[in-house]
């Protein structure tokens, strides 16, 4: 399956942290043709295995997404929201959202007072969770019979193909990286590899990387490769916080194994794949943080797909960077063998 077709479909499936079943089932089916076995764990991680006799490698990217839940239904039928993960409330005014009610998906509008009726003091303040609400366009009684506190609310799913192979959609964080794993899994089906490969689409990353934690315990991998998004260049960003949008980024730092990172750089060079380097002096803010200290420890590498406007409904990425990421990962994993064990800490 081509990455764009996969992304168009998978980003439209709700998978807000803690409620990822639908997304997990879709992803499991996407991996199935390229896997020896696919399982969905109790917390909704998807584990797709390509068997090998060599070292066990866990490759992970998270399938959950930031979103919202209904926290209260007001007397007039408006919904109040609680965010799940780091949603910036300033992106919400005027947004169409999808409310997953007991009778199916319904459209809601994130409402605000119109500009005509705002007082001056209100115009200079940002909207916060206290001032935003969802308008379902129906009387309070109807809302109450349809919507329950705790129901999932997602950004509207859109996909815009931009110039120069770039595209904008919701949930590139981190299904863009699931797409990279899928791309690599397809390639590896036609390549020789010694390693026992587990492509894990993890759950619950956005509230604390819990999927990586439990999947790592279950699989007990020898090595890990985590995939997440990082920030692409944007005006006004602080120094050293962003990367170019057009290629993947390998992280260096104490949480990551220097040998595994060096191998990544070599693989990129050998195959003519552009690769940037970023430095994470401590926490990486990704599944790598948890997976690296699972059980007796897992040496890790971390690759990132640079995106603009992270944690919004318009996350923007470069399709070429994504597909090249799949190629890099495939070539990298095809080289893993027993000899790596001795080189790890030399």
């Amino acid at each position, binding site marked *: 399956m081509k990455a764009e077709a996969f992304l168009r479909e998978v980003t439209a499936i709700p998978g807000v942290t803690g409620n990822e079943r639908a997304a997990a089932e879709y992803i499991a089916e996407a991996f199935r043709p390229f896997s020896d076995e696919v399982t969905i764990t109790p917390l909704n991680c998807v584990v797709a295995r390509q068997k090998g006799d060599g070292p066990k490698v866990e490759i992970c990217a998270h399938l959950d997404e930031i979103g919202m839940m209904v926290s209260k239904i007001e007397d*007039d039928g*408006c919904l109040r929201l609680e965010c799940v993960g*780091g949603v*910036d409330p*300033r*992106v919400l*005014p*005027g*947004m*169409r959202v999808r409310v997953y009610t007991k009778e199916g998906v*319904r*459209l*809601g*509008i*994130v*409402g*605000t*007072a*119109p*500009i*005509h*009726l*705002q007082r001056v003091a209100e*115009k*200079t*303040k*940002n*909207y916060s969770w206290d*001032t935003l*609400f969802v*308008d*379902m*366009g*129906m*009387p309070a009684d109807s809302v109450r019979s349809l919507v329950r506190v705790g129901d999932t609310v997602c950004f509207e799913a*859109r996909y*815009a*193909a*931009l*110039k*120069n*192979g*770039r*595209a*904008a959609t919701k949930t590139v964080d981190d299904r863009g990286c699931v797409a990279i794993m899928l791309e690599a899994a397809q390639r590896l089906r036609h390549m020789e590899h010694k390693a026992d490969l587990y492509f894990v689409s993890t759950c619950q990353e956005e509230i604390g990387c819990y999927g990586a934690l439990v999947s790592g315990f279950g699989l007990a991998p020898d090595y890990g490769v985590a995939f997440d998004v990082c*920030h692409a260049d*944007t*005006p*006004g*960003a*602080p120094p050293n*916080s*962003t990367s170019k949008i057009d290629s993947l980024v390998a992280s260096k730092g104490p949480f990551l194994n220097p040998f595994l990172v060096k191998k990544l750089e070599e693989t990129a060079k050998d195959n003519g794949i552009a690769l940037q380097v970023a430095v994470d002096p401590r926490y990486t803010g990704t599944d790598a943080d948890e997976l690296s200290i699972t059980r007796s420890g897992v040496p890790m590498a971390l690759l990132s797909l640079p995106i*603009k*406007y*992270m*944690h*919004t409904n*318009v996350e*923007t990425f470069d399709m070429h960077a994504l597909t090249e990421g799949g190629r890099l990962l495939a070539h990298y994993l095809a080289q893993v063998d027993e000899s790596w064990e001795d080189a790890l800490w030399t």
Partner: protein
Amino acid sequence: MDLKTLCELNGASGDEGAVRRAILDAARPLCDSVRIDRMGNVIAFQKGRKGDRRLLFSAHMDEIGFIILDATEDGLLQFRPVGDIDSRQAVSKYVLVGEKRIPGVIGALAIHLQSDEQYGHVLDYDGLYIDIGAKNRDDALADCPKGSYAYFDSGYEEFGDGFAVSKALDSRTGCCTMLRMMEKQYDADVTYAFTAQKQVGMRGSSGAAFDAQADDAIVLDCAPAADIRGVDKALKACEAGMGIAVSFMDRASIANAGLYKELMDLAQALGIPHQARRDTAGLSDAASYQRTKGGMRTCVLSVPCRYMHGPSSVIKLSDVQAQYALADAFADARKPLHK
């Protein structure tokens, strides 16, 4: 022409071409004459069976939008609103730019990269830009030259209990009502004015009013529905779903008292859902008709509209029906009820 089709056309003030063409095509078979005037308004005229009254109905066909100022060296388009759009409504929206309708998104610095101080500030148009994926300034301006218009890429959808959401309900609802009225012939001579450039200061209607040959002008517009959270109770002016809002006054015009009473009485007598608009916020084309040349009797019939001037304004469809019903009844009325 249905409301969905009308709303999904793009036509910000000064860029009404697509809307103008669609309205011309729809109006021609139904009217005695249809012309484009000096200001870009579409003026359609239908001779009455008796010609005993001369009426004018008017709705603006333009909408709010954006215009491209320039591009940064890294290829991001800088822009400003055409008409009043709260910049807070623009963050993270999908847009279409220029004649080629190039897809883009309105970006801003990610939440993770903002300082506490930045987070406290409203993102204004200096901090927002449109990203079409361009690599540099030349690449961006090649497809979207300076002066290109941009639009929220947000279609028309019906939802909830008879509500609809779109970017351009203000005032394609009025255009829709007039196109529907044209299907009938009245006793009165009726002029239908589809005006340009209302959102930048009622400029189209000033020309339309100068040429108008009518005694009464009924303006069909939208009014901010203040039935929503976040609006002071004192400002609650009209409510979506409670019928057509009849204005005694707005920021730029004052209704003829007799005409206002006539419309209210007519709605009452015929059981047309209606409400007095209890507030004067906003401007309307009535200003032009009221006091150009010798002046006309004017009154505004507004569809209450939530979240106006954003990507997702909301109306109740029954209010559009009520707007049609009252405008139609007024055009049908044999003689004025009040002077």
